[in-house]
């Protein structure tokens, strides 16, 4: 047994028309056709503005003479929650500690940015970059040379004018 059935009172069909509704819809359409405000972004011809705190694939900073800034202290592999950094330290011919092997598996990386935060010499950074397509999977393990070649800007993990975020 139906309870509280609401009976809709519709106007009789001969007194209504679809025309008014159709015209008001088309008016909106034509208004957008001539409206100069564009909503669609023409990617890839037009690039998106990324937030300064966007965390994408890594960048290794280097000294003026092309040596990596990394001193192989081992903090980033230690702090990395995804365990995606492999580091073997050694000593170069000038007696400086440097990474013989430094590899980041960007597939494993969760882009938390802790490697950048923990780095005592500001060598490894996450970057403002997201176009990482490759043809083979093994290209996603970035070695030291590849990390130093990256030319996209580094992420700002905090506002430099307000480092304590106050």
């Amino acid at each position, binding site marked *: 047994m139906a309870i509280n059935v609401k009976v809709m009172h519709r106007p009789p069909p001969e007194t209504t028309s679809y025309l008014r509704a159709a015209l008001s819809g088309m008016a909106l359409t034509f208004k957008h056709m001539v409206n100069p405000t564009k909503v669609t972004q023409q990617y890839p011809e037009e690039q998106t503005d990324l937030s300064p705190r966007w965390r994408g694939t890594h960048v290794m900073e280097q000294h003026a003479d092309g040596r990596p800034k990394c*001193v*192989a*202290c*081992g*903090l980033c592999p*230690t702090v990395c929650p995804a365990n995606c950094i492999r580091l073997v*330290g*050694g*000593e170069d011919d000038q*007696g*400086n*500690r440097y990474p013989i092997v430094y590899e980041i598996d960007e597939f494993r990386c969760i882009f938390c940015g802790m490697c950048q935060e923990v780095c*005592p*010499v500001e060598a490894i950074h996450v970057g403002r970059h997201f176009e990482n397509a490759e043809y083979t999977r093994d290209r996603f393990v970035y070695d030291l040379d590849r990390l130093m070649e990256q030319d996209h800007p580094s992420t700002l993990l905090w506002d430099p004018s307000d480092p304590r975020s106050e």
Partner: protein
Amino acid sequence: MSELVTLTIDGREVSVPKGTTILEAAKTIGTEVPHYCYHPGMSSPAMCRLCLVEVEGAPKPMPGCVTAVAEGQVVRTQSEEALGHRRGVLEFYLVNHPLDCPICDMSGECNLQDYVHAEGREHGRGREPKRVFGRDDFGGDVLFYGDRCVMCTRCVRFMSEVEQDHRLTVVERGNRSVIDTFFEEGLDGTHWHGNIVDICPVGALVSKDFLHKARAWDLTHTPSICASCSQGCNVSLHTRDNLVQRIKPRENLDVNGWWMCDHGRHDYEWMNQGDRLEAPLVRDGGTSRAVGWKDALRVLLDNAEAAGTAGVKAVASARSSNEDLAALAALVDTLGGGDIVYRSPRADEEIPLKGFPGLARRRDLSPNARGAELVGATRVGGDDATGGLESVASHRGIVLVLGDALADQPDTFGQDAALYVFMGTHDSPAARHADVVLPVATHAEAEGTFTNHQGRVQRFEPALHAPGMTRPAWLILGALVAERGGGSVARTAAEAFAALAGRVPAFSGMDYDAVGSRGAVINESVSLTGD
């Protein structure tokens, strides 16, 4: 027992023997007073001024490392005054310290790092440039980073008091003072200098061998026994990625104190060696076939059945554990009885550590020669551990080889044997005629005990994962004995030790748990001077 003195440390009453220092008394209640220059194995110059504690009634803070306890004394190690003094001292240590922790090998196990983190100032106030010494090669295995040094002089005192070979000294004065060697002599030719790297509280003295190899916090420490000679020094194997990265001594005042020799310290590459035997092999006329354990043991027992009663000749190794050797002896008995021989290298002379009587690199370079003797094996061959196996090589009965690589033997070894079983870590040309080749674990991969030259039984624990199907020898041999002679299989090292204790009189009544981490001396009367 000497007279006891009762005092109060941080509100807790402590009773310690008369003459104990405040620092040692505090240790007994679990309070560590920060210190650099004090080391229990050496004299205390009280020059680092870091162990300052507040003593009620004393006009000034007292250094805990040299102040003897007194009846009714009230000591505060954590009071505002004591902490303030230590905070001041720590600030002075950082005046010239380069704070290069990211590239320092000591980082993670550094006392300066720990103490400053616990008690130091949050921010430095120094504005003057720091003095810079750079790096110096001290010879041997030691590099010296002068900037990191806190001038505790532990290294100088170790060389003069313990090794008693004056190779290091302090030169210059005041701010410019620095540790140095005499002329170009360095530490070359000394046999115990690796210890100064251990006792350096900061990263001033580092090992060349370990330089930049691993971070301290990545290393897993496993208690073990040094296998480099029959002294049986207690050590820790520091491993990472299933590789031994370095060996450090472990404190045991009955054996090695806090020290170990450089030969033992650097004798670890063999534990990391690859190219291992990983599966049991059954050999038949030049072809080798990898089989499972069940099949391998079945083939072995069937062949032993067919071999008849020509007797057993076994070659053991003094690098095998007591449990391995006892299980081998049990198998020899089960297969009809025979002799066990072992070979062991001997050094030309003993290298004693003069400042710690009873510790030396012994002439006998195997860790368990004493255990092999107790189990009933006979030493053969020369001081270079070659030769002496002529009767085994041509034996017509059963030949068992455990742990001896037979490096000096021709590939005709054991060709006349009715059954030749080779148990080892690596394949050998002399194992060509072996009917069965079984992969066994090294002492770094298995649990067990060694008996040192004093007759002290000491346990070691597995630090590495054994490759492939490798098993400890006592497990394999115990399974064979149980299969052939009946009885239960020893599945743990404790059960294997119980089997040893039931078999060898010198071990009777001993218990694996009771041996513990410090070791226990075997039953028979032992001479404490060793060979």
